[in-house]
Every structure is written in structure tokens, then in C-alpha cells.
């Protein structure tokens, strides 16, 4: 989906392409309306410029026309609403999140992202939990469930390439999910002004194959237990 004229970041989540295609649908609709309006505008400006000996038409409007374009606009926004609702719920409504997958805790604080992994046993609050700073390691092809918290001010968990954004609000635990479709390194950013270090509140998302990820978890857990033993 490389489009030289549209600098969308690479799209690597399962719902990303659906968001992008809705984006392009809206681009088409608004594009047509835009061209229509601007062309008419310019056409009228040229055609109806003041000329010697011609008087403007004395008209106060046309109710039928007005009803038509009001109805047409309603139809368009109705369609947009209809097209948006299911996708919105699929991304944001916890009841519709896919089951299973990896669970992570992400805590934002000035100006860092703390990611807590449940470790090998898959449960939080046990000895093999481990934490990463400004680094989100995940497996490809598996739903990743995140519980977002913030310690101080509001931050916003922003994964441009995954088309995901969710504020982290102190005092709240906000669930979010996504699923990577590709391995590689991607961007984790903060999208809500959170103080003087906001601009550098950046992390990396590292997507590995499931096997590599398992190995990585094992290795991290060992590091962790070794540290604890020391």
C-alpha cells in the first residue's frame, strides 16, 4: 500500500488496514464534496462576475434544492456513522476484544513507559514478572492485551504503525489491545502533552516471531531470577 502522495506510516496491526480503508473511504467522499464545492465556487466566480448591463437574478432561494442537499448530507453522515461503529467497537470496546494472547501492564510516568511482563507463568504478581523501560516486546500474530496506567499526569500510548492510541489516565486502568501482523521494530510515542520531557517520551516496539519471543521471555526471566539471587 505504498502511496507516494499519502505519508501514512507502515500498517502492521490487524485492525490497521480496516482503519486505513475507512480513512480512504472518507477521503473519497470528502474529496468528491471538496471538488464539487470548489469547482462550483470557481465556476460561479468566473461565470457570474459583474459585467456591464447585466443584473443579478432576484431570487431568495429554492426550497426543493435545499431539501435535496440537506437529505443528501444526512445520507452521507448516516453512512459514515454506520461504517464507523463496528470498527470502533472492535478496537475499543473491551467486551469485544479477542480472547487469549499476551497480557501486559503498561505504566506511563514522566517521561517513561514501563512495561511489565507476567513472565513464564503468564500471571502478574509472581516472582518471574519482569519489567522493561521504553521497550515493548511482543510476538507477531497474537493479540496483545494492555492495561494502561499512569502515575502522574495524563499520557497517551501511541503506536502510529499499529493505528492505536489510548490515553493513560492517573487513577484509571484502561484496557487496550492490538495484534501485530509483521515482525520488526516500530515506534511507541506519547501523544498527550505531559510536561517538559513529553517530546522524548519515546519507546520501541519490537515484534518478534512467536518462537523468538518465547525464547526472549525465558531469557529475561532467567536474567531476572539471576538478579534476584545475587
Amino acid at each position, binding site marked *: 500500500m505504498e502511496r507516494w502522495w499519502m505519508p501514512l506510516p507502515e500498517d502492521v496491526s490487524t485492525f490497521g488496514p480496516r482503519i486505513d480503508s475507512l480513512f480512504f473511504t472518507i477521503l473519497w467522499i470528502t474529496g468528491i464534496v471538496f471538488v464539487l464545492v470548489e469547482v462550483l*465556487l470557481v465556476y460561479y466566480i468566473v461565470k457570474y462576475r459583474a459585467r456591464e448591463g447585466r443584473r443579478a*437574478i432576484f431570487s*431568495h432561494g429554492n426550497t426543493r434544492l435545499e431539501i435535496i442537499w440537506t437529505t443528501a448530507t444526512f445520507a452521507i453522515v448516516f453512512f459514515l*456513522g454506520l461504517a464507523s461503529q463496528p470498527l470502533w467497537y472492535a478496537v475499543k470496546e473491551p467486551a469485544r476484544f479477542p480472547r487469549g494472547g499476551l497480557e501486559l501492564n503498561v505504566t506511563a510516568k514522566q517521561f517513561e513507559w514501563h512495561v511489565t511482563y507476567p513472565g513464564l507463568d503468564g500471571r502478574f504478581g509472581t516472582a518471574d514478572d519482569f519489567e522493561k523501560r521504553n521497550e515493548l516486546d511482543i510476538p507477531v500474530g497474537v493479540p496483545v492485551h494492555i492495561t494502561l496506567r499512569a502515575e502522574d499526569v495524563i499520557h497517551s500510548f501511541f503506536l502510529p504503525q499499529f493505528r492505536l492510541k489510548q490515553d493513560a489516565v492517573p487513577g484509571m486502568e484502561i484496557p487496550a489491545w492490538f495484534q501485530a501482523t509483521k515482525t520488526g521494530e516500530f515506534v511507541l510515542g506519547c501523544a498527550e502533552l505531559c510536561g517538559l520531557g513529553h517530546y522524548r517520551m*519515546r519507546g520501541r516496539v519490537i515484534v518478534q516471531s512467536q518462537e523468538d519471543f518465547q525464547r526472549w521471555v525465558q531469557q529475561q526471566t532467567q536474567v531476572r531470577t539471576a538478579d534476584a539471587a545475587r
Partner: protein
Amino acid sequence: MSTIALPHEAQAHALHHDDRSFVRKYIFSTDHKIIGIQFLFMSLFFLLVGGLLAMTMRWQLGWPGRPIPGGAILGDAKAPGGVMLPEFYNALVTMHGTFMIFFAIMPLLVGVFANYLIPLQIGAPDMAFPRLNMASFWTAVPAGLMMLASFLVAGGSAGAGWTSYAPLSAVPEYSGVHTGQQLWCLSLIILGFSSLMGAVNYITTVINMRAPGMTWFRLPLPVWALFITAILILLAIPILTGALILLYFDQTIGTTFFLPANGGQPLLWQHMFWFFGHPEVYILILPAMGFVSEILANGARKPIFGYPAMVGAMIAIAFLGWIVWGHHMFMSGMNPVLGGYFMVSTLVIAVPSAIKTFNWLGTLWGGSIRFHVPMLNALAFVSMFVIGGLSGMFVAATPVDIPLHDTYFVVAHIHYVLFGGSLFGIFAAITYWFPKMFGRMMNETLGKIHFFLTFIFFNLTFFPMHLLGIAGMMRRLYDPTQYPHLQPVQPMNEFVSVNAFLLGATQLIFVFNFLWSLFKGRKAETNPWHANTLEWAAPSPPPHGNFEVTPIVYRGPYEYSSPDSPVDYLPQDRPPLERPSPAPTLAPAGN
């Protein structure tokens, strides 16, 4: 239905020998025209301040880390060696938004034109409460000075964005700003009183002081727009004031309304702020829509297309504007089901905006268009507002807002509606009513140069911001090159900055034209644009008390090119020509 007796008793007052002292006449004046002009100078000043702040920001965004030319004067606390610090950048973003919205656009639209136009266009000698009106201006001034002074206090000015989200705005340890953040609250609380006094005045005046024959559906559209705007101000500002007070308590006496400790709610601030904030954005556009409608009809020499629909659309916006605030909070952690609801209401509110746009096109259709400077700016308003409205559709659709929220796409959206819309509307209005205000015409050539350059550089500055947002560039970002995914678009940032400087420089033409025309402009006739509304029946500039004889209104405001008139306009106060048909009876307004 009774007919109205013509006011034979209405005599020419002794308007001519005005023996007020200089201070009563120009400084502590109760004359709505002087107050309007005072607001004009104040808000143009803050417009320049806001613009300067924006230029400074663009320097950093275009060339992060490079010393600002002449940046040494900022001092080491803000920009050591001329390179601005992130905390200063945050202050700039915050104060740019705050000045532009509260101290430039809002007073330009409302403070200036509601004051200047309402009495003149409805045929009244002044506002209902002239002294309250004076108090309104003299309350706005200290609020502005306080905001300005906050740059100088230790810790600098507020730096939590114009939306001032708590807890960042509430706890000095989080933002690094102590006094500045408090001054921000106080200044806006004070400004709220100013707006409130104005709103009470405008509403009462429109309801009670219309000249005989000026029925609701003969009101010029600027008056309708300003009336509805005043209602929005009246009802929205107190919500902001309440929220600001709570925030101020959190900052100063240690309450926790918006802090999570002890069960306070950070999202409560956002709900209160946007419950005010969305009506506020319509406060920032409705008056411009009114001015543009007036000027388009005048320039096209045609009645406005669908006057009732124009009024109806504004009324619809005024109602719907209260139930859409959540579209600013789609990503805030608010219940997604609420988000779904707010999307629907937001999409619905796009309909009246569309109706207005189509009606403006309808007004041009079949016209005989004169391209005077006000008309050019009004045409620009229509074409740019369309872009702003359409980009609104992207962010209103919740799934698409997920990547776009809090990015430069939103920045592009707000500048297409607020600069492309409101500010072009303001340029149109200033150039159109300048002759009435000051009795002189503005220079047409300079006006055209300013218009074309502004139009070009505006688009070159703000259109690419859509693309930057799509590329994932967050707003309020001190240094975009920190992010790998933004490094490829850095040339676009430079491009934007260059054009922003050119856009800024272009405004000097306007400033020059304004000041020059004030003293040297061609003398204006009473009715230079051959317009219909009542202000053009008064001398240019109108004397204290406005009309020598209370005008009587016989018809709607947009009877351009009426077959009843030998010329292509037909003022509202011109008595009907003797015709075979029985003279129309004048129904009192409001029935």
C-alpha cells in the same frame, strides 16, 4: 395586527455638539462604537502577539536545536544560547492557543463586531446597558495584561496547553510552572466576566432595541449570528469559570477535584472543559459566518440564498453544539459506548454546516459579483471553511480519529476553521466595515495584495499539516526529529516553517494598510458598498447616538437587485415607492 404610527415626534437630536471630554469620549467611553474600536485595537494587538509566538515555535519545529536569530533576548531561563528549552516551547504552544482563541479571535468576532454592529444594524442609538458595556472592555484589558505578564513571572507562563488538562495543569511539580499556571486560570476567570457582561448586553439589545419594523426575520445575518453566539457565551462561559475555579483551588489550596488522589477525577476537567469548549468553537465561527453571509450577498448583488435555512442552521448548531463535546475525548478513556454516541451527534452537526456552505454557493449563483477586498476574503472563507469542515469528518469518525487524534491533522483542522474560516471572515469584516468605523476607505490594492499572499501562504503553511498528522506527528511536540517515523517528514516541517514566516510577514501589509488608511485613506461616503442594512444609513462614522432619526424598517436586509428598485440595492429603511398596490402595513416585530 396593528400598524405602526410613524414616529413624527422623532426629532433630530442635538447630536452634533458632542461636549464630552477626551477621556469620556475615547477611553472610558460608553459609546458602543468606541468600545468596539477599543476591542479592535486590543485584539489586533493580541493577534500579533499570538502570531509572533507561533513564528517562534515554527523556528524550533523547522530547525530543532538551532539558535533562534535574536533569540538571546529571551534569556537563559527560556532559551540558553538562543536555543529554546522544551519548557519554553510548551509555554509558547499554550500561550499561542490561549491568546489566539480567547484574546484575539473571540474579541475580534464578538467584542468588536457585536459591539459595533448590533446597535447600528438594528437601528438603535446604543446598547441596552452602555456602562456595563464599558465595564466589559475594561475587564478584558487587565485579563489580557495578566496573561501577558505571566511570561515574566518565575517559572514562566502556563505550559499545559490551551486545554490545560489536569493533573499536569494542577500540580506545579508535574509542569514545572507555578505562578504562571495560576495566572492563566485567574486571567480567564476575569475574561469570563467580561464576556458575560457583553453577552447580557447583546442579548437584551437584540431583543429589546430593534427599530420599528425590524422583525426577527428582517434581521441582518450578522445580528442573528451574534445573537446566537451571545447565547452560547452566556451559557458556556460559566461552565468554564466553574471548572477554572475548581482547578485554581487544586493549584492553590490543595483540593483534589481533578487529581486521582482521594478519588478526584482527571477526566472531570476534560468533561467540563469540552462542555464549554465545543460551544466555544462555534462562538469562534458563527459570527464570521454571519459577516460572510452579509458580504457575499453584497458582493454578488443578490439576496442571500435561503435566509430561513441560514438562520435555522445557526439555531440547530446552537442546540446540537451542547451534545457533542465528547468528540474531543474519544481517546481519553471515556466509555467507548459514549464515544459511539458522540460520534453520531458530531456527524449530525456537520449537516447544518453543509447547509450553510451550499446556501453560500446558491447566493453566488446568478449573481453579478464584484470582487472588492471584503468579497475576496469572504470567498476565501467559504472555500477554506469547506476544507475545515471536511477534515472534521475524518476526526469525527471514531476509528479514523484513533491515529489522527492529538496529531498535526487536528492542528490542520483547527487552523482551516479558525484561520481559513474565522480569520478570513474577520479580514472580510474589517475591510468591509472599516469605512463606517473610521470614515475612510482602506487601500484596495494593498488589500488585494495582502489577500492573495495570505491565501497562498495560509494554504502552503497549513495544508501540509494534514499530511504531517497522517504521518503520525503528534501535536505540541518540541522536537519531531526525536522520532524515527518522523525523520522522513522533517523537510515538510521546514517547508511549513518557511511558509509560516512568509504568512507572518504578509500580515505586516495588513497592519500597514490599516494604520495608513486610518489617517490617509480616501474619505468614505455614507454607503460605499451600496449596501442595504441600517448602518449604511448613518453617517460614516456615525455620531454618538448613531441615527439622526430612528430608522423605520420596511423590508429584509438582502433585497439586492430587486425589481422594485431602479438601482441594484434597496436599503431596509427606504420607504416603499408609490405603487398601485396598497402600501404594505408594518407589523410590529415579535408577533
